[in-house]
């Protein structure tokens, strides 16, 4: 019988009362959950109150410097470092992964050695090395070894610290991306590339149109992680030394104001904003590559194709 006391609908022979009545369950009590929630809410409230009233947080400084032009410029630089380094890392990482999976032993082991070096040493150390690049190599020459030179680039003038920072970050990250891409490619059944090959698709078409798109579902989530991690790793490029990104710039400003805390908050706010934007981007990217797995609705491209087929038939 309904616990709420509402009259149960009249039961017929085919529809006994229990088929018509919504199940009205007495929810099990979860006192532990409630207590934990109360403790957390109270703790959060206390922390916020403390933070708002504690003068060392320097909220007025926070507000003053959040949109300071130096900070905005530094935020832009951080974003550019992240984007360029990740683009480089993805391109090199895909190549390394494909090399690793290729039947050619030389390519396989080159890829392995690359990973061994770039994953095996701290990114900070690598960045210091890149900073010394123009000391080690005075100029880059394009030409035939022991033969004529076609072009010469002085490393001192040709490569800015920004370039070196991007290169250093990208080459390090490429090693991690290579493993992510390799896992993704291996997750696609052999039958997929076999069917493509049997149809006469070339190796490149098979990779780019059949295997990679399906590997993306496995590749994207950890890559999202890597992008976010890269955003924060850019704070290490002081090692090069490149000092115009968010963390170093705000720290430099803090040395003028003699209060590091508001500047740390400013930097954190920008990092958080970028991370949130990246998470939104990742959501849409994942949805794009979900065709055929979670989403039942055909892609726009597929619908256009079947419209074309039907139009032709009519």
């Amino acid at each position, binding site marked *: 019988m309904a616990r709420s006391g509402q009259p149960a609908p009249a039961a017929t022979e085919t529809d006994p009362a229990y088929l018509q009545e919504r199940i009205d369950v007495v929810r099990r009590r979860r006192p532990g959950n409630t207590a934990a929630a109360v403790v957390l809410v109270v703790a959060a409230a206390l922390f916020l109150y403390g933070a708002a009233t504690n003068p060392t947080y320097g909220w007025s400084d926070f507000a003053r410097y959040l949109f300071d032009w130096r900070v905005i410029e530094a935020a832009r630089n951080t974003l550019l470092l992240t984007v360029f380094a990740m683009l480089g890392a993805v391109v090199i990482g895909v190549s390394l992964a494909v090399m690793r999976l290729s039947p050619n032993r030389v390519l396989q082991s080159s890829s392995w050695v690359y990973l061994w070096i770039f994953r095996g040493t701290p990114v900070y150390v690598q960045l210091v090395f890149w900073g010394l690049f123009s000391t080690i190599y005075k100029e880059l020459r394009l030409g035939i070894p022991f033969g004529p030179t076609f072009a010469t680039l002085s490393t001192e003038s040709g490569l800015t610290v920004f370039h070196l920072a991007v290169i250093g970050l990208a080459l390090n990250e490429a090693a991690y991306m290579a493993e992510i891409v390799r896992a993704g490619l291996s997750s696609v*059944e052999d*039958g*997929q590339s*076999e*069917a*493509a*090959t*049997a*149809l*006469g*698709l*070339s*190796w490149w*078409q098979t990779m780019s*149109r*059949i295997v990679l*798109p*399906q590997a993306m579902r496995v590749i994207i989530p950890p890559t999202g992680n890597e992008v976010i991690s890269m955003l924060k790793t850019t704070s290490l490029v002081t090692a090069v030394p490149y000092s115009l990104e968010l963390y170093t710039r705000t720290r430099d400003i803090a040395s003028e104001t003699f209060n590091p805390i508001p500047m740390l908050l400013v930097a954190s706010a920008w990092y958080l904003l970028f991370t949130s934007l990246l998470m939104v981007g990742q959501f849409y990217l994942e949805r794009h*590559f979900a*065709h*055929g*797995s979670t989403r*039942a609705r*055909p*892609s726009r*491209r*597929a*619908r256009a*194709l*079947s419209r*074309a*087929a*039907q*139009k*032709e*038939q009519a």
Partner: protein
Amino acid sequence: MSSPTGAPPMLRAEQVCKEFDSLRVLKGISLEVARGEVMCLIGPSGSGKSTFLRCINHLERITSGRLYVDGEVMGYHDRGGRLHEMHPRDAAAQRRDIGMVFQRFNLFGHRTALENVVEAPLRVKGVPRADAARRAMALLDRVGLTSKADAYPAQLSGGQQQRVAIARALAMEPKLMLFDEPTSALDPELVGEVLDVMKALAQDGMTMVVVTHEMGFAREVADTVVFMDDGVVVESGEPQAVLTDPQHQRTRSFLSKVL
């Protein structure tokens, strides 16, 4: 078995051998399939049936012997008796004339049924989009699946997936079709729909090599049945002869297990 006009047989295997490292899987297979003929390959698991099919379209490289499809050596250029390895582009060009249907369907999971069928004509042959789409729809109609054109493989039953896979192979207008146990992964009630499509294809004159355990199909559709065991052809001939009156003990014991 060459035709009166002197055209070469569609498939000709001469002493084909295949080894994986030290494992000898095919030990000298010789057979011929004429144009328009249906050959069923039967034999116990591990006898090398799939390997042989994969050698035909050069997914596997044979170790010795010769394989000719429509008079051409598969995977190699024959220059004055010596075989030269082919550029992958040329091997791909040979494969596009040979359709292959797999036990596990292998439909492209991120593409709808229609996109699966359209992919190769569009990318390999460069057929204009609208033409390719129209012809793909006609092929889906032929396998009875126009209503599923926009469905992804995961939304189709096994039988439907296999019919799409057949349509996908037909889209390249192959002269030879290879089937590797096309119904073995299917629930019993779905086997019929796939076999019906294959029967219709055989009636239309398609040359087919079918690895199968469906003895009813072999008896009804095949022109030749080949029994393979342990990498050799034990017995071959008309289905009636091989299936009802086998000459070899190995054939008899195999048939007594599957029938």
